């Protein structure tokens, strides 16, 4: 029998490889490289020094670091007990607790800040009936460093939780059982074995919380700007919003300063991740949960108490505010009204436009990025290509660095007309799309790469043996097999993009506003009722999408969805 002739001699794999490298170079390397260049060689060595000489810069930098550090401490204080309880104990109702606990990460900061402002304000629909609300005329107690740190801590606690939880679940069961057999009880095990062995993931999670905190815009914008408390992100926003592209060099230098602080945190995170001991050999069997016994009730009550405090109460007062007829009018069954919803849904043109724009941007990113991630993940996970792995790491930067940094970098690259085409993307929706693609690529890539690691390479090799070329293998074998993870990646991108604020607020132009911007502007402009109504709608959509993605979960590798651990 003669071998089957193979059709066509051309192997498309190298071409796809080069195309992907080009995409990453354009999306990640070019803008960030351009920004770095601005710092060392651009028209203003003198400008750089003038920015660095300004007192304002250092005050903002100090505020940034202080609030971020305090926030990180709080994140650790919340995240560590949560991870230990949920990963190691036999607490009941874990799935619901994890879901509730992840909400502050997935609901955007501007909405969380809005909710907390309502919760603690003089008009607080929940505190006022109890007589606990501050008097009218007194500034909201959350304004300033304390409130910012508090909310940063709550918003980023899930990052600490996720990192530690993953570390705890990767612990080989025998190592803990050997300690139990040695006579160590729960606390002893925790102190001597479990926590020392998960120190690295904990440090990594805390660094991530810190980096996210310094890049956060929505929280310090809503809680800091009213009291004149500036951090670097809000300083950049105020300069750019006030003076436009004329101050581009100046804000570029500020964002470089922000990037450097972030890089220190990221460096620490990378160091911690590398310190993880790889000599551990696990049997892969799930850990036997430590029984809480008679402590079950009080601990469960404490967990639910925390969830009520950091999730239910603020969201509840957001909902209550959205139903008020006028700001400050006490809410009752008789006074509750849907007018605010009617207004944002039908009357306010900006809100309608914003919904469409956000859907377009998030939808396009959710469609394009998984398609890029499919071949990218293949090169990274299966081919073990060094270059592609490096490219994959570079693609992490636009997500890991503060959004403000990426936004400024995109402006620097795209403000001038594109070569050949002769038109500029600045002040159009397309600059926002480019920035979204750059920022969220890594979300899709991580999910898909995890999928490749779980798939047997023989799947592709058999198709190769059958004579299928590279693109055909991707299309007919790998894409269907990885469809569930790619979908999970798409949903993750969509969720995150739908709620985006930091990039958008620096890149938008009239007509191109997004949901994040409208909620932010309404709240900042004092229209708390409409802001609350729109925020409630966005939260509802977010929760709905999370639940929808959860239905996919049985077909996903573990950990593909952050809120199902």
């Amino acid at each position: 029998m003669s071998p089957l002739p193979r059709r066509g001699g051309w192997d498309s794999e190298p071409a796809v490889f080069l195309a992907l490298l080009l995409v990453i170079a354009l999306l990640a390397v070019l803008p960030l490289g351009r920004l770095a260049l601005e710092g060392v060689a651009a028209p203003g060595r003198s400008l750089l020094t003038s920015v660095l000489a300004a007192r304002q810069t250092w005050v903002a930098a100090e505020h940034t670091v202080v609030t971020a550090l305090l926030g990180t401490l709080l994140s650790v204080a919340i995240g560590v007990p949560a991870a230990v309880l949920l990963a190691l104990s036999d607490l009941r109702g874990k799935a619901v607790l994890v879901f509730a606990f992840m909400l502050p990460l997935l609901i955007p900061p501007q909405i969380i800040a809005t909710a907390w402002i309502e919760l603690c304000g003089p008009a607080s629909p929940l505190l006022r009936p109890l007589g606990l609300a501050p008097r009218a005329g007194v500034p909201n107690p959350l304004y300033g460093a304390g409130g910012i740190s508090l909310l940063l801590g709550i918003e980023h606690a899930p990052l600490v939780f996720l990192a530690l939880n993953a570390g705890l679940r990767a612990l080989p069961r025998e190592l803990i059982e050997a300690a139990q057999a040695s006579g160590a009880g729960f606390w002893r095990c925790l102190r001597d074995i479990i926590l020392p062995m998960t120190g690295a993931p904990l440090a990594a999670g805390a660094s991530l919380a810190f980096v996210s905190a310094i890049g956060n815009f929505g929280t310090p914008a809503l809680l800091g700007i009213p009291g004149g408390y500036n951090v670097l992100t809000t300083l950049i926003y105020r300069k750019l919003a006030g003076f436009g592209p004329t101050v581009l060099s100046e804000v570029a230098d500020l964002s470089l300063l922000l990037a450097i602080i972030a890089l220190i945190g990221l460096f620490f995170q990378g160091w911690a991740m590398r310190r993880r001991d790889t000599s551990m050999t696990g049997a892969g069997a799930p850990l036997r949960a430590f029984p809480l016994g008679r402590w079950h009730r009080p601990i469960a009550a404490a967990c639910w108490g925390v969830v009520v405090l950091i999730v239910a109460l603020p969201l509840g007062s957001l909902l209550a505010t959205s139903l008020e007829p006028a700001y400050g009018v006490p809410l009752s069954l008789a006074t509750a009204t849907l007018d605010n919803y009617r207004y944002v849904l039908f009357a306010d043109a900006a809100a309608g436009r914003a919904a469409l724009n956000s859907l377009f941007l998030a939808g396009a990113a959710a469609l394009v990025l998984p398609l890029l991630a499919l071949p990218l993940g293949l090169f990274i996970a299966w081919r073990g290509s060094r270059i592609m792995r490096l490219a994959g790491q570079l693609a992490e930067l636009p997500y890991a660095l503060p959004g403000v940094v990426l936004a400024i970098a995109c402006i620097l690259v795209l403000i001038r007309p594109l070569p050949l085409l002769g038109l500029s993307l600045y002040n159009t929706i397309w600059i926002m799309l480019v920035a979204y693609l750059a920022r969220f690529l890594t979300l899709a890539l991580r999910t898909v790469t995890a999928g490749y690691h779980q798939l047997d390479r023989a799947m592709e090799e058999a198709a190769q043996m059958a004579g299928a070329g590279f693109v055909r293998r991707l299309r007919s074998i790998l894409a269907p097999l990885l469809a569930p993870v790619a979908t999970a990646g798409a949903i993750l991108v969509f969720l995150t993009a739908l709620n985006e604020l930091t990039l958008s607020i620096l890149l938008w132009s009239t007509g191109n506003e997004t949901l994040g911007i409208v909620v932010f502007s309404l709240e900042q402009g004092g229209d708390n009722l409409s802001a609350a109504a729109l925020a409630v709608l966005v939260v509802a959509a977010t929760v709905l999408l999370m639940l929808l993605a959860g239905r996919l979960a049985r077909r996903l590798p573990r950990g593909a969805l952050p809120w199902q651990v």
Partner: protein
Amino acid sequence: MAGLSLAGLGKRYGAHPAVENATFELATGEFLAVLGASGCGKTTLLRLIAGFERADSGTIHLGGTLLSSPAHHIPAERRGIGIVFQNYALWPHMSVARNVGYPLEVRGMGRSERDRRVAAALESVGLAGFAERRPAELSGGQRQRVALARCLVMGTKLVLLDEPLASLDLHLRASLQDAIADLHRKSGAALLYITHDQAEAMALADRVAVMDAGRIAQIAPPAVIYREPATEMVARFVGRGGIVPVQVTRAGEKGRAPVDLFGCPAVVRCRADQPAGAALLCVRPEDLRLAARGEPSFEAVVKRTHYQGGSVAVELVPTARPGALLAMTLPGHSVLAAGQRVALSITDGWIVPAG
């Protein structure tokens, strides 16, 4: 009475019984090896005794103390049972010395006394100079020695080992077997040793337990397991040899009974209460020989021969029973070819008890 005692111990996963009605006693200082096919419940049995799993039924006593019953469960950390895991389970963030000394540390023993005992334990497993190393800086065999030292230092009455040598190569196994025999001798503890390696079990253990689908099929000294298997499964699982149908011509008397093996009369060993009738005969390789001319014999066909250097292992199919298989060992110079017909006679055999 001291030692370990299980009565009617059972554990189910869903509807599937992983361990059923395990009942046996392990005397102080005894070495029991547990054999059985993969998935028959060996690890589950060990984890029940260790206290990592809760039994659904039955009881576990150690040294007269109740460790486990359906209503009562002493957690693993309060049982004081030493355990050696297949993948060592050394804590990577602790030095070798701290790994070994941890059980003492937990018990609140003072520094100097602890150091002394750790040094002695490391010495006795041949790792005297390794105290300050990290587990990652040791070879597989050395890691398992550290794990042994960790058990030794606890001074427990019972040590459980779940295939402790399975991830080591053949060469290392022999030296670790010595180390385990050493641990057994020095500690005076009872050992419950799970293994896949029959030769290892036979060589090390005082008694062997064979498990079959969650139940303990037989528990007896190695020679008894080999010579007098209690069930057909044990007969097939342990050692080489064949199981063939025979006709018992007269009920057993003083442990012997006359049988008719494919028309060839013979007298074999049996239980005292063996009735006459159809039965299964376990014939080990050393029980078979080529028949001399004129001797009562039955015919078989050579199926395969393996030259083993010094001897030849031969597989044969009785002509009267083409489905059955017999095995025998012949001197290395004998020339038998596949397909050849030979006359066989048996010198010994064991009637496998029915039911």
